[in-house]
Structures are given as structure tokens and as C-alpha cells.
């Protein structure tokens, strides 16, 4: 883990879980797998605090534990999982676009709580939805359960590993920690629950609460009195599936930009058909026959089979090689080359970054070197048709930022510099990794800046909050327009600043996706 990533993890943990969890989490990321006492000793925090922090981290799938010999339990943090926390809003927004508000709230609850049982999720979401509905209407549990089942069927939500059922637990002492197992087949198996009920509104004068006098309300909720039917079956959000979805979206929009709407629809259909059959790291999808694609096209599209075949041939012949032809049976078997597609997307990202940072002439040189793979200094000047001095300058600028690298080819075994070729080349993988690292660093910087701005303007922000409250109360009693306007104007400037930094924060994250997926694909 690079220093920038560790810094970003620390900032994220601090924002979302507080300082104690941050200290423990960062220590684990830095030092790897450690047992409980060592953590407490090294971080100089009390044992109780460490236990609390570890419970929180394990609940949110950020730390895993393993039982080693002699009963020692070691805890290990997952840095990449912590970095995913940056993307929570994206995941929630995706769920909203696919499954509307219900889906959005389900995913939000799962992300905020780490893991939950289905009945707990359904109840909470129904309550939340009921709050936003008009008076008198309530949300039925059945509807929420349906959306939940749909989310599971499309693999957006998956089961957590289970505690194995031990029948002979009284023979030996129970192990210090359970070993959780999960069966591939069971990961998306929804238990048969009959959740009947409606969402409740949280109001002080609720009809349901009249039965129990408030003074003696027991601390436990009413759930604990009834046995929970799906006890022990926990669900979590399947982040890989979301990443797959983002990747598919990127590919479809790339095809739409390059060709036209119809071809992008065809590609989208192909991707949808292979959503659940293709494992996440596969280089290409399962082969699909042209007949199958024709049958699965969305209902609105009535293009003839011949036109579809023409489009497919066109896509397969395209130099970008998003779609490839793998056989001729069934009217032609077509696959989508996922790794190649990701590579092209990553290259396009790099090109656009070079263009925005250094100018279009630099971008021309960059694309040239990409295309020709290895070029000498003189050749670059000739091919790009840029005067020598400028070309030199640009090449060295890009070299210093590590977008371009030098490859030495010695003519003699003693590597004498006067008798060695020096060729400029672009190593896409390392350039992508460098860019990703830079993204993480800039996100960390932005978070710091936002915290700084918040602290600076804290007084002003608090004032604005009070002003808003005053305005609301004044509006209720009916006050003059002018007064209200005057008060509102006081708060615009720092608010705007805040918003700017926040925005930059969020949007920097977008660049990350494609690069990460590309790097992950090459590694696997």
C-alpha cells in the first residue's frame, strides 16, 4: 500500500468512524496481520477501545480475522475495501437508477450497517419509506421484499459467509473464533420468509405506542421477543457486481460515442445476457449466438435479423476490438473482449489526461508513441511534424511526469552510452498505476482541504444554520421579504467554497474506476 493510499484510508476511517477506529485501522493496514494484544500494545490504546474498534471494522467487512495455531486470533485489514468507501454514493445512485427508491434505500442501509438480516433491512426500509409518504399511506413489507429478492437475483446483494452449524459442540471447548464458510451455490439463495407487515411512522402520538406506557418501555425492541425467522443469515452489498455494472456502462457509452445508438444497444443486450454467467475477472464473455441476441433485443427495437448481422460484423471488424467473432454456429458466435475493452478505455483516459495537462501537441506526440510503440528522438520529431526544440521540451516534460519512459537498447555488451539506442515508449500499465496513485493523492488532499475549510468557516456555518432556523420561524409568522433576503445573502460565499471542494472531491473519484478495473484485469 502506497503512502498516499494509507493517508486516504486514514482520512476516510476518521470521517466515518471516528478517531479510535482510524488509529486501529491504519495500524493494521500498515503492519499487516496482528493479534489483539499486540495491537493494543503498539497503538497504546486500552484493550476495550481496541475491541470496540475491531467489532466495528469487522461488522463493516473492513477487517477479517483468522485463527492460527495455539488459538491465537489474528486480524487483518483490507486496504482496498476501505478505499471503496469513497464510492458509496455511486453505488447508491446506481441502485436508484435500476430499482428506484426502494432499491436505493436497501443498498444504503446495507452499506451503512455492513451486514444485516433480510428481515431487519425490510423493516427499516419500510419505515423510512413510510416517513416520506403522505399521511395515511404506509409501505408494505411485501413490496420491499420483492425489490430485495430482485437485487439478490441480479447479484447486487449477496450472502455473508456463515457460521458452520456444529452438532457436537459439547465434545471439545468451543474455538476462540468461528471459521466462516460460504458455498458458491448458497450465495444468492433467499430464505423463504413471509414478512407481513407495514412500515411504521416515527411519531410521538402513534396508535401503536398507546399499548405500552412510555415510562416503562423496555430497552430491547419488540423484535427480540419474537424469534427472528432468518436468524444468522446476513446479507452484504456485492461491490464487485457494481463494478461490473460500471464497466458495462463505460463500454456501452464508448461504443455509442464511436458508432451509433443501435450498436450500443446491441452491445448492452449482449452484456446484459452475460451478466450473471460471466465471472468478474474473465477476459471475455461467454459466446453468444446471433440468434440469441436477436431474441433478447429490447422490445422497442425492431431491426431485422439481417441488419443485426451487419451491425455485428461491423462491430467485430472495428479496430478497437470490443466485439470479437469466435465461431460461425447459430448465425455467428460473438464475444465481448472485456480486457481489451478496458485497455482501450484506460488508454483513452491517459490520452485525455495528457491533453488536458500539457496541450494538444503533447497529446499528438503521446498518441504517436502509443501507436508506434518505440520511437527515437529524431523519429518523434519527424513523424509528429513538430520542430525539434519543442518536441524535445514536450518529451522531457512527459518523461518527468512518468507518462512516457525510456527504453535502452545497447549495441555493445558494455552498455556504453554513446553506442546505445534510447527509445521512447509508453508502458500503459505503469502509466495507469501512476495516474491512479495521483488520483488517490488528490482525493486525500481535497478531503484535507475540505476539513480545513470547514474548520475555518465553522463559525460562519453555524451562524448560517441559525439564520436558516430564524428564517423558517419568521416565514411561519410572516415577515418582510427584504429582511429575509438580507439574511440569506450573508451565507453564500463560504457555502460556495465548501460546495466547490466537495464537488471536486466527489468527481475525482470517477476517474479512478476505469483505471482500477484495467489494472485489476491485467493482474488477473
Amino acid at each position, binding site marked *: 500500500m502506497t503512502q498516499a493510499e494509507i493517508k486516504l484510508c486514514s482520512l476516510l476511517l476518521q*470521517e*466515518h*468512524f*471516528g*478517531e*479510535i*477506529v482510524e488509529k486501529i485501522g491504519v495500524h493494521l493496514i500498515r503492519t499487516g496481520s496482528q493479534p*489483539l494484544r499486540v495491537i493494543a500494545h503498539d497503538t497504546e490504546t*486500552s484493550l*476495550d*477501545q481496541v*475491541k*470496540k*474498534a*475491531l*467489532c*466495528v471494522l*469487522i*461488522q*463493516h467487512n473492513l477487517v477479517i*480475522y483468522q*485463527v492460527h495455531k495455539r488459538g491465537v*486470533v489474528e486480524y487483518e485489514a483490507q486496504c482496498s475495501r476501505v478505499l471503496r468507501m469513497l464510492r*458509496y*454514493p*455511486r453505488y*447508491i*445512485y446506481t441502485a436508484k437508477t435500476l430499482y428506484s427508491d426502494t432499491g436505493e434505500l436497501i443498498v*444504503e442501509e446495507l452499506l*451503512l*450497517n*455492513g451486514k444485516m438480516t433480510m428481515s431487519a433491512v425490510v423493516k427499516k426500509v419500510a419505515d423510512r419509506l413510510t416517513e416520506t409518504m403522505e399521511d395515511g399511506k404506509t409501505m408494505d413489507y411485501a413490496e420491499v421484499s420483492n425489490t430485495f429478492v430482485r437485487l439478490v437475483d441480479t447479484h447486487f446483494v449477496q450472502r455473508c459467509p456463515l*457460521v458452520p452449524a456444529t452438532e457436537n459442540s459439547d465434545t471439545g471447548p*468451543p474455538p*476462540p*473464533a*468461528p471459521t*466462516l464458510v460460504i458455498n458458491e451455490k448458497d450465495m444468492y439463495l433467499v430464505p423463504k420468509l413471509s414478512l407481513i407487515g407495514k412500515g411504521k411512522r416515527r411519531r410521538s402520538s402513534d396508535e401503536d405506542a398507546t399499548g405500552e406506557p412510555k415510562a416503562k418501555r423496555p430497552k430491547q425492541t419488540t423484535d427480540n421477543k419474537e424469534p427472528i425467522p432468518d436468524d*444468522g443469515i*446476513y446479507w452484504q452489498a456485492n461491490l464487485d457486481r457494481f463494478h461490473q455494472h460500471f464497466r458495462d456502462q463505460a463500454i456501452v457509452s464508448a461504443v455509442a460515442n464511436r458508432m451509433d445508438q443501435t450498436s450500443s444497444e446491441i452491445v448492452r443486450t449482449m452484456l446484459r445476457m452475460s451478466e450473471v454467467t460471466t465471472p468478474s475477472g474473465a477476459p471475455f464473455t461467454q459466446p453468444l449466438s446471433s440468434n440469441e441476441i436477436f431474441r433478447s433485443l429490447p422490445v422497442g427495437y425492431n431491426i431485422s435479423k439481417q441488419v443485426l448481422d451487419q451491425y455485428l460484423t461491423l462491430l467485430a471488424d472495428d479496430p478497437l476490438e470490443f466485439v470479437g467473432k469466435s465461431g460461425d454456429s447459430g448465425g455467428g458466435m460473438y464475444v465481448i473482449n472485456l480486457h481489451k475493452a478496458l485497455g482501450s478505455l484506460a488508454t483513452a483516459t491517459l490520452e485525455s489526461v495528457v491533453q*488536458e*495537462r*500539457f*496541450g494538444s501537441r503533447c497529446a499528438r506526440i503521446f498518441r504517436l508513441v502509443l501507436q508506434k510503440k518505440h520511437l527515437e*528522438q529524431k523519429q518523434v520529431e519527424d513523424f509528429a511534424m513538430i520542430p*525539434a526544440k519543442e518536441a*524535445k521540451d514536450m518529451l522531457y516534460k512527459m518523461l518527468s511526469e512518468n507518462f512516457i519512459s525510456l527504453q535502452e537498447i545497447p549495441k555493445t555488451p558494455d552498455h*556504453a*552510452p*554513446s553506442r*546505445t539506442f*534510447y527509445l521512447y515508449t509508453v508502458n500503459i500499465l505503469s502509466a495507469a498505476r501512476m495516474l491512479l496513485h495521483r488520483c488517490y493523492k488528490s482525493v486525500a488532499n481535497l478531503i484535507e482541504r475540505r476539513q480545513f475549510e470547514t474548520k475555518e468557516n465553522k463559525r460562519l456555518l453555524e451562524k448560517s444554520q441559525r439564520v436558516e432556523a430564524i428564517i423558517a420561524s419568521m416565514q411561519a409568522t410572516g415577515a418582510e421579504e427584504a429582511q429575509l433576503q438580507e439574511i440569506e445573502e450573508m451565507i453564500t460565499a463560504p457555502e460556495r467554497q465548501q*460546495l466547490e471542494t*466537495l*464537488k*471536486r*472531491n*466527489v*468527481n475525482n473519484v*470517477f476517474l479512478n474506476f476505469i483505471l482500477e478495473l484495467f489494472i485489476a484485469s491485467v493482474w488477473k
Partner: protein
Amino acid sequence: MVFPIGCLNPQAPSIMASRGGGRGCGRGQLTFNVEAVGIGKGDALPPPTLQPSPLFPPLEFRPVPLPSGEEGEYVLALKQELRGAMRQLPYFIRPAVPKRDVERYSDKYQMSGPIDNAIDWNPDWRRLPRELKIRVRKLQKERTTIILPKRPLKTTEDKEETIQKLETLEKKEEEVTSEEDEEKEEEEEKEEEEEEEYDEEEHEEETDYIMSYFDNGEDFGGDSDDNMDEAIY
């Protein structure tokens, strides 16, 4: 013996001369043909850098504007909401409030934070290692298993008991040690029970009143400012 810095090998004056000569006129001789890299003869090299590069170098090109629009705005609002929501959840662990310089009477009545460092939410303990569970000392009528009985209130009763224990030990020096140990354990257990009951009673008495009714007493003295002649006690 002090060697001049430039002269390390007195037996090779020719090399020294050329190096000195090279430094004197034009650029120094480098190990490779500089033309291959693109520095022609007579070109002026950029001046050497004597300080680290500036922290915020001026940008040649303006950065691309941020993506705005419906999706961007919604995601932004979501992020703000999420951050706020996470602070309210029980997973957000706040460091313990540092004790103020003087122990105040109201501290006993303001229950800030969970009892005994336990966590606010209930995880499924079957899924977690056993060592992570923090046992909470429960103030219940029935006696629950307590691992480390804490003795914060050393009252006179305890002192008397310990004195008695010491006296009995002195008297029974000649007896077998195992018997002594058994007796000690019994006495300790009795002490635990008695002390525990005592603790519970005390605590129960203290919390008979509803917490919110308790008045800090900090407002006292600020109200009655009518007669400034009398001193306020």
C-alpha cells in the same frame, strides 16, 4: 596531509588536465554522446536549479470544469447526507470525554456514553471471536458472573473485615496451608457477596430519581439579585 580536492591521482596529470580543461571551456565531458539525446553543440542548457520547485506552480492550462448536472448534484447531496448519517450511527466511536480538572458532583448523574465501555449496538456474537466481547457489569437483582470484581468503595465495613481476616490468619499460622486457603476463599466469596449487595443497594438508592429531574445547581445564585445588601451564601 591534506589532499587538494581535485587531485586524487597524482600519477595521471593528463586526465586531470583534460578534466580541468573541459570544465574551463564550455560544458563538461559526459560519458555519452550528448547529440544522441538531442543537445546539439553550442546549445545553452537551462540554468541549474538551486531550490526545490515551487509548491503551487502556475498552471499553463485551466483544469476541465467539474461535471455538473442531475447526476452530479444528486451524488454530491448523497455524499453529504452519508457523512452526516454515519456520524449519528452507533458505529461512530467517540473518544471518551477527558475528565475535567475537578470531579464534579453532577458527573455521577450525567451518563455520557455507554456503560463500562460496551458498544451501543448488538453484533451477532456467534460470528465474532470470543475475545472481542466486553463483559458489562450489570446492576441487576440477580447475581451474574463477574470476572473482575471492582472495589471502588472501600468502606469501613471492608476494612474491618480485612483486619479480621489478618487476625484469623495470624492465629492459624500453625494449621495446614490448604485449610487456610479454603477459608480465605470462602471469606473472599462472602466479602464479594456482601460488598456486591452493598454496592447494588447503594446504586439503586442513587438512581431512584429520574435522571432528567436532577438539577445541576449551576443556575443557582444567578436569579436572586434583588437584594445586593445581603451576602449570598
